[in-house]
């Protein structure tokens, strides 16, 4: 997901600040002590421990670890806001990021567990009896994981700096330090049990404010039910009210389908996210850590259950906070609220730069409607510390102030979507400890994902490249050392990317899914289900899928180079946007692999025997 939040900090009036600050430090400090304590307790003593936690992880624990591994800082902080602003189309992220677990449970996880080795490239190398296939898989894996982890490290820095009031660089170093301790020391074993703890922290932090807000707005404590409930003020169903309100303000209705994206594009993006999820190496490898094949199957179910708790809450948080925002800003009569009487949180977030107001109609009231309040990309540019006549922060790039559709006024407000989750406790008037909890939750989400990614990168280097390709004679002890060293180096590179994010990182994170969908997923799937698939088919398929998807993204989005064509539906193949390009890449991968395999020698007998073997659990 895109990480758009600026570096910011939550500041309230002086007295409260002390409280909140102390509470936040205590909460985060305790959670760090817990993570490091777990890492020391469960440190790795063998390569088996380091790569796959000795294959002793209970399926429920693995489910929790997978959920934490999977849900990043962006899931935790940005997703609800994203859905709140997209409405129906937010469903493609919800379905896309959960539907992949069905594919994982039925098509990949049990067979890879039966294969029973350490890494995803190792399976590809053995199944396709080719060191070349293994190296190509390592390249795909590193490509996918580094794009993903760079965004995570940035996220770690932002969360740290926002909640702990330190510069973003300091935040990043602290995050790197903690991940370094428990990933390098504990390997997969340490990371697994830390992720279990991190899941508990993040899910508690996410659901507590959501329940409070659900009760405030609808009287029903379950967010999943609250979203389909009537409002406490007796004005009918929440979603109907939201639809009407948004249309009156010039927006598209919340629940109607295909406002901004075509049906085919929604299908393609959803499928690309599903298949991409199933093909992400750091997710797949989690299923190598359970004791038996049957545990791998049920563990995918547990993982999805723990993910579902957050993913079915997020759409409620999105809709409820959008509703909250509109009624707070436009007021009871819908004519706007005077800036002077805006609640405290409004000014807090304005100070942090994630919210801005320009009084287009000079009535001293804040009004929210469709359209951009600010010129250019719609983001405000602040005139440093200058204040306007209402004491609001002055901006230098007001938009035209045009009225959209039937809206009664022009939009005067810029709201960063990330505020939705972060400001929720304040908007709902919840106590400071809930805000501190959100901070610990956001950091847990960022750290757990970063650690999982760094681990697959380091194990593919020490195990797939070093031990199996370039330095076959090293002992287990040396390999373990190499793994730790590689983890350290990977953390440094990730940290560097987080400090100096290449302009494309934010864009590319979303495309890691497309790359996974078009390269790794198809070859693993065919490795299990198509006995006739041989090494030439697999290698050509992976390269075709990866290069097509990469090419399509660069062609329209421009990574390192200027885009070659405008990123508009008229230019896309079949109307599929770059976000959904993984689906075309996957189809090409399957097609090329099948044609090539048919015209080259079938895999040798012992490989066909291997395939028979991984299909049977016992």
């Amino acid at each position: 997901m895109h990480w758009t939040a600026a570096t910011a900090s939550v500041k309230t009036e002086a007295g409260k600040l002390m409280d909140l600050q102390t509470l936040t430090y205590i909460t985060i400090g305790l959670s760090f002590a817990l993570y490091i304590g777990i890492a020391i307790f469960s440190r790795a003593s063998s390569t088996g421990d380091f790569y796959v936690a000795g294959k002793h992880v209970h399926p429920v624990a693995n489910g929790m670890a997978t959920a934490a591994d999977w849900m990043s800082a962006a899931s935790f902080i940005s997703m609800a806001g994203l859905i709140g602003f997209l409405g129906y189309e937010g469903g493609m992220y919800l379905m896309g990021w959960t539907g992949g677990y069905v594919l994982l449970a039925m098509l990949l996880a049990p067979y890879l567990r039966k294969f029973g080795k350490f890494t995803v490239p190792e399976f590809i190398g053995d199944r396709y009896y080719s060191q070349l296939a293994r190296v190509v898989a390592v390249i795909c894996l590193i490509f996918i994981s580094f794009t993903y982890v760079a965004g995570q490290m940035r996220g770690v820095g932002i969360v740290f700096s926002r909640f702990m009031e330190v510069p973003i660089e300091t935040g990043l170093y602290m995050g790197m330090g903690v991940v370094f301790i428990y990933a390098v020391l504990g390997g997969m074993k340490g990371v697994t049990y830390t992720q279990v703890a991190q899941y508990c922290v993040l899910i508690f932090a996410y659901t507590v404010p959501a329940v409070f807000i659900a009760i405030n707005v609808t009287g029903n404590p379950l967010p999943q039910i609250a979203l389909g409930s009537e409002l406490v003020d007796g004005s009918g169903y929440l979603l109907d009210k939201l639809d009407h309100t948004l249309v009156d303000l010039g927006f598209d209705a919340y629940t109607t389908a295909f406002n901004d994206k075509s049906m085919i594009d929604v299908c393609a993006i959803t499928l690309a996210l599903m298949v991409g999820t199933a093909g992400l190496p750091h997710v797949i490898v989690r299923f190598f850590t359970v004791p038996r094949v049957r545990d791998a199957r049920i563990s995918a179910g547990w993982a999805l259950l723990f993910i579902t708790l957050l993913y079915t809450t997020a759409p409620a948080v999105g809709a409820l906070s959008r509703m909250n925002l509109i009624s707070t800003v436009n007021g009871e009569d819908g004519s706007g609220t005077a800036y002077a009487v805006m609640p405290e949180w409004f000014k807090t977030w304005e100070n942090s730069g994630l919210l801005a107001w320009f009084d287009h109609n000079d009535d001293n009231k804040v009004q929210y409607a469709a359209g951009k309040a600010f010129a250019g990309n719609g983001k405000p540019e602040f005139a440093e510390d200058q204040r306007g006549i209402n004491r609001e922060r002055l901006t230098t790039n007001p938009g035209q102030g045009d009225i959209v559709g039937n809206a009664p006024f022009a939009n005067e407000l810029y709201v960063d979507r990330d505020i939705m989750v972060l400001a929720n406790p304040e908007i709902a008037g919840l106590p400071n400890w809930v805000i501190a909890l959100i901070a610990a939750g956001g950091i847990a989400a960022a750290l757990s994902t970063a650690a999982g990614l760094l681990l697959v990168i380091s194990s593919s280097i020490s195990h797939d490249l070093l031990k199996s390709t370039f330095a076959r004679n090293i002992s287990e002890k040396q390999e373990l050392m190499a793994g730790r060293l590689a983890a350290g180096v990977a953390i440094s590179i990730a940290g560097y990317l987080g400090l100096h994010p290449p302009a494309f990182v934010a864009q590319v994170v979303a495309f890691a899914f497309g790359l996974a969908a078009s390269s790794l997923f198809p070859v693993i799937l065919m490795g299990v289900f198509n006995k006739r698939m041989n090494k030439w088919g697999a290698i050509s398929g992976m390269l075709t899928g990866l290069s097509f998807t990469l090419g399509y993204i660069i062609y329209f989005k421009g990574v390192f180079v200027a885009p070659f064509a405008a990123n508009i539906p008229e230019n896309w193949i079949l109307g599929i946007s770059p976000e959904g390009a993984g689906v075309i890449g996957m189809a090409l991968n399957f097609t090329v692999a099948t044609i090539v395999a048919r015209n080259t020698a079938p895999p040798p007998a012992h490989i066909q025997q291997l395939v028979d073997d991984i299909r049977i659990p016992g």
Partner: protein
Amino acid sequence: MKNQQTAYWRANIRLITGCLLVWFIVSFGCGILLVDFFNQFQLGGYKLGFWFAQQGSIFTFLVLIFFYAIRMNALDRRYGVSED
């Protein structure tokens, strides 16, 4: 033994096909392709198509995985390939 394994694999493929059919119908069918049709109906305050896209399909995925895992355990035992 060989026949037994082939039969086990066939049964597995049948089960997967059935599950993925439901997976497809609920998410892509009800949630995307036929969303406008289902939106004519209400589930409490939810339009049905919208509910499938943002809630229903996720719950269905969850049920599908547990159903598959439990049925596979039974298949493992029936074909004598269980790990116990």
